[in-house]
């Protein structure tokens, strides 16, 4: 079976600035792929090229074997795209929104009516379907936003930061729905800067930063690149920048970044045994008031690959 998505050497430039630089990855049929990166890393620009909203300056995209540049209409039929921002008519009801977008996908009238009912059930909005979207909570709008992309039963669902700004309850509901869709065989491209979401939903992850795909693989593969490094989270009281600088010089520490006004994240080999040395190194600029040593995870892999955190 053809891969759900293959993109190769995607490039997008705005003037002299290259915002996407030779990004390439593939998603197999039925696979859930996460594109993980901080805000401004190039995730949305990459997705805009994948769904045909932006013309790449270089590279190719095929969806289900169809070249997006050569036959955009056929390729778009296979994609369900959920944009990062809510893209709905606020003055219309959820059902009216779904009807309008469903017609753009040429769904026959009767089939569309039935399908609208199904997706409203799926996202848990059947009882509010005839209320105007402008009266919805942020989470309900997000779920409607996703429902629109499911109407035509796409082979590949592309979700661009689908949980931004939603309440925890809606977030759980969205993630549950996404997991169910993947379990039913839908291919998924999920972008987020929330590590835990990507870890939960996706089987394979690409780490993108400053327009470049830094690494690509299963969670196990990415973590394995860390070797024996642990993630060490320190809470400090004092000059956090100077402390991070000092900790970076400690032998065994490969990365040290400031993650808040009083927190520093380290990648360190044998982190547990290194703690006394770290505390001693910090003295003079700050007092260490809390310590957590975490087994290697995606967060640590991200720090290792990009030298930065998934800043919000």
């Amino acid at each position, binding site marked *: 079976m053809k891969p759900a998505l293959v993109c190769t050497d995607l490039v997008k430039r705005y003037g002299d600035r290259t915002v996407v630089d030779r990004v390439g990855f593939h998603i197999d049929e039925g696979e859930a792929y996460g594109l993980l990166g901080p805000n401004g890393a190039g995730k949305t620009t990459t997705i805009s090229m994948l769904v045909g909203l932006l013309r790449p300056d270089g590279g190719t995209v095929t969806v289900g074997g169809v070249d997006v540049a050569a036959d955009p209409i056929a390729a778009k039929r296979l994609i369900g795209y959920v944009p990062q921002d809510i*893209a*709905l*008519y606020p*003055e219309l009801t959820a059902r009216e929104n779904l009807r309008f*977008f469903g017609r*753009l*996908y040429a769904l026959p009238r009767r089939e569309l009516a039935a399908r609208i009912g199904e997706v409203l059930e799926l996202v848990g909005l059947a009882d509010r379907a005839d209320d105007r979207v402008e009266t919805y909570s942020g989470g309900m709008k997000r779920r409607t936003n996703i429902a629109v992309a499911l109407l035509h039963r796409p082979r590949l669902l592309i979700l661009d930061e689908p949980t931004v700004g939603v309440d925890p309850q809606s977030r759980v509901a969205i993630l549950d729905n996404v997991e169910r869709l993947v379990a039913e065989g839908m291919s998924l491209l999920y972008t987020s800067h929330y590590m835990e979401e990507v870890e939960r939903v996706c089987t394979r992850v690409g780490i993108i930063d400053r327009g470049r795909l830094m690494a690509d693989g299963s969670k196990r593969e990415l973590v394995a690149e860390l070797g024996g490094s642990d993630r060490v989270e320190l809470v400090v009281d004092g000059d956090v920048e100077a402390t991070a600088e000092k900790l970076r010089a400690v032998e065994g520490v490969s990365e040290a970044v400031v993650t808040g006004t009083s927190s520093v994240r380290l990648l360190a080999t044998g982190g547990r045994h290194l703690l006394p040395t770290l505390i001693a190194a910090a003295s003079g600029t700050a007092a260490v008031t809390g310590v957590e040593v975490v087994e290697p995870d995606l967060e640590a892999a991200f720090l290792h690959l990009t030298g930065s955190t998934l800043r919000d």
Partner: protein
Amino acid sequence: MRPLLVVGGRELAARLRDGTALLIALIAPIVLATMFGFALGGDDDPPLRATIGIVDHDGGEFPASVRREALNAEELRGVLTFKSYVDDTAARAAIDSGEAGAAIVFPAGFSASVGAGDGGEVTVLESADTPLAGVIARSMVDRISALVDARTLAVRASLRAGVPPEDVKLFVEENGAAGPSLELASDPVSGGAVDLAVYYGSGMAVMFAFFVVGLSARGLLTERQLGTLARMRAAPIPAWTAVAGKGAVGFLLALVSMCATWLSSELIFGASWGPPLGVLALILAHVFAATMIVMLVASGARTDAQADGYTLGVAFVFAFLGGSLVPVYNLPDFLQTVSLATPNGWVSAGLTELAAGGGLADVALPVAVVAGIGVVAGVLAVLRFRKGMLA
């Protein structure tokens, strides 16, 4: 075609739902056209019974000839009356009292000076209260100036060629410059034949066509801000569907708006805009041009408020320059020329043709020019959309 209908249907529903279509396309232009018609139109149009004063300090053949020729001019038969005044003060008093609409002053020795090839100048006294009498008077003076220039040139050429000064007048007249003659079939004067109810009614219709299409342009930018434009573009439909669907609805609403204003003008004032086919051709061409111009403007806007501002600016500038707000013949000469760069100006010229008894064939040029303006704007809009919003 089906996606275009879906997008167009949605746009039309949105315009009807928020009430803007009804207000901008029907109520506003019809009400304004009617108000202008009542205020300025009707049977009392000053140009149709203009009285021009003559102050003849010259007493020669030239002023007499001008009067004779003007009264014989086909366009002014039954319209123009001349009254003589002894001096400028008396003429000015007559104009101020409304006895005369304007006056032409011939200076002493004017005929002799022109006959000798030395040229000459006449002046026009006008009043803001009777602008169209002033138009006629100025039009006559323009013609007089042209004749004087021609005569001066002929006399000087003859003198240089060796014709004796005492024989030059006879020589020139025998060789084609036989004294003053006026042909007053000029556009400004025939413009006065259009009922002002028609003039302002059509002016409002022409101007509001921009506003009506502007609603759809605004809608396009609103969709962009809502993110629904991107969502449409991610759907399996041709890339231009959203823009074309909005533009098509703008076109149709503007067409309905202009036709409704036309119909209301004819029904309320009983004043004909001209043969229906000719009027319809002009309206279709204008609505097309307005749609393309507004889409070109929208292609450069980033927000719906910006699109509104641009459309408003273009509509008012074109309305002013093109004679939709102020009659073209009241504008300075260079602005009268500039008016022909606007579709409004050509539609106004076309309606004048129709009012003067012309038919469909007589408006072929205005229709072609207006449609041409639309094509140029359309091509530029497509290029700009491809580089911008639809890149």
